């Protein structure tokens, strides 16, 4: 037993080095003075200054942030409702087909999701005249749909371990289901809701493939700008941008993890 543990922990540490080394090196090289990305020319923050002067990138950041905000909010609404159906509803045809539809996007290859949504938007524009053109609205729909799956998974696992007696007491005392939901259930699952929202936010901010299909000339998101410049090769300016993205998204992910964990721990202290 002991020897195996030694082997597996060695692999664990090697695996962690494998996961983190490329990002750490990227961050290090974003402070490289030299324009040659492979030669170290001394420490300099000049690429960050150059980044701030690039209007195209700044516009894309703003577009991406807005889309991420609206998408994660819609995903939160849809995902929470779906989670309620999955956990609280009796077994029925509607429930089963909904839970199949909500978990499918988790593993669907992005090119398929992207292509199918684009064809839908083109058809709708043809038949209904709406959406008139593809842009922020269509990316919002696409992102809300696939982020809702992640929210549903996060919220459902929280709902499953929730104590029903408080909600029942509220209902017995005459609260309407809607009131009981907002006054009792929402505060109890708030950390999971925030975790789901933040996870959606970072997923939406990060998505390239689905956005490329769903977007039009009107809305260029940050990953689309990064991708078109990365295709041409490595550049120090993109290194600087990548560093900022890594730090920002890791921060969101960390807060989301922390919120989900704090709610778990509170339950444990309550003796559950």
């Amino acid at each position: 037993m002991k020897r195996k543990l030694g082997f597996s922990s060695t692999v664990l540490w090697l695996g962690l080095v494998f996961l983190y080394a490329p990002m750490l090196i990227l961050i290090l090289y974003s402070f490289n003075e030299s324009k040659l990305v492979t030669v170290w020319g001394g420490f300099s923050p000049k690429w960050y200054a150059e980044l701030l002067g690039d209007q195209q990138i700044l516009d894309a950041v703003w577009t991406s942030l807005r889309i991420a905000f609206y998408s994660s909010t819609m995903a939160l609404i849809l995902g929470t409702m779906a989670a309620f159906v999955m956990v609280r509803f009796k077994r029925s045809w509607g429930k089963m087909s909904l839970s199949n539809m909500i978990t499918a996007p988790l593993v669907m290859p992005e090119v398929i999701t992207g292509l199918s949504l684009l064809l839908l938007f083109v058809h709708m524009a043809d038949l209904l005249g709406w959406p008139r053109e593809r842009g922020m609205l269509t990316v919002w729909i696409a992102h809300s749909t696939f982020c809702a799956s992640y929210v549903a998974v996060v919220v459902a696992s929280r709902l499953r371990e929730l104590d029903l007696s408080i909600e029942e007491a509220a209902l017995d005392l005459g609260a309407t289901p809607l009131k009981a939901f907002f006054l009792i259930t929402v505060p109890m699952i708030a950390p999971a809701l925030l975790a789901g929202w933040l996870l959606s936010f970072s997923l939406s901010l990060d998505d390239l493939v689905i956005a490329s299909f769903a977007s039009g000339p009107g809305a260029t998101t940050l990953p689309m700008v990064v991708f078109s410049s990365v295709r041409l090769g490595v550049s120090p300016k993109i290194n600087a941008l990548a560093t900022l993205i890594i730090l920002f998204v890791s921060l969101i992910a960390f807060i989301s993890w922390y919120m989900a964990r704090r709610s778990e721990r509170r339950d444990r202290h309550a003796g559950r």
Partner: protein
Amino acid sequence: MKPPLRLQLPKLQLPRGRLWTLGLPYVWLLLFFALPFAIVLKISFSTAVIAIPPYEPTFHYADEALQIFLNLGNYLLLLDDSLYYMAYLSSLKMALVSTLCCMLLGYPMAYAIARAPARQQTVLLLLVMLPSWTSFLIRVYAWMGLLSNTGLINNLLLWLGLIGEPLQILNTNLAVYIGIVYAYLPFMVLPLYANLVKLDMSLLEAAADLGSSSFNTFWKITLPLSRGGLIAGSMLVFIPAVGEFVIPELLGGPDTLMIGKVLWQEFFNNRDWPVAAALAIVMLMLLLIPITLFHRYQSRSMEKER
């Protein structure tokens, strides 16, 4: 205690509220997830033309008759042109090999986390999962700098004197394998950990007491008991890896054939929407078995948690 509680609750809720809760996400998913697949299927039977949108309608209503044109040409093309079926085969092969590599690397990692002291477990798990939440594109990009001919890895090997001239790693299939394993490793570790952490240690102790070697114990007890996590992790890696576009595009070379890349090129470069749609339909058919496997595991583990 529990079952009667759950049976009571639906009665307490207003039917109208329940209808809304089920209805809104249902209609949304039907419209923006299920319906699009039907449209992809329809477009895959149409003919490409130079127009906006660039395909011919499948349904025609003329002379009081509904005419349906099904053009099988796109599917025949997939069978006929070796580019396409080679792309499918090589995508499946690359996804399979990457999944196995993730398994070999991810299993010991998950095992080590599951056996670590409880306090360390959550931190280690966070360390493994954090990269998967960080920008996917950026993480693939990071390897471009590392693997290039003048990149850090080649410079290091040259400096150590292990190689005489730079190795061509970037723009080869090897780089694609590295990229897929790197990007999807966390998705293998998470379900495996969730499974291994529940493993009953007394079984392993009993086996050891009865004189079983540690390898034998692993092979006969630990591995079979973690089958569920192994299947879930493999599907989480394999299915998206088959359709991967970003990794072969950025790390692969001109001879890297992957179906996600071919689909992208048909759609964006050749503007042949019907062929792209047919490619997507066939890819979905190929992935139907793995997706079903994943769903079965997912719903079973949800039932178990109750």
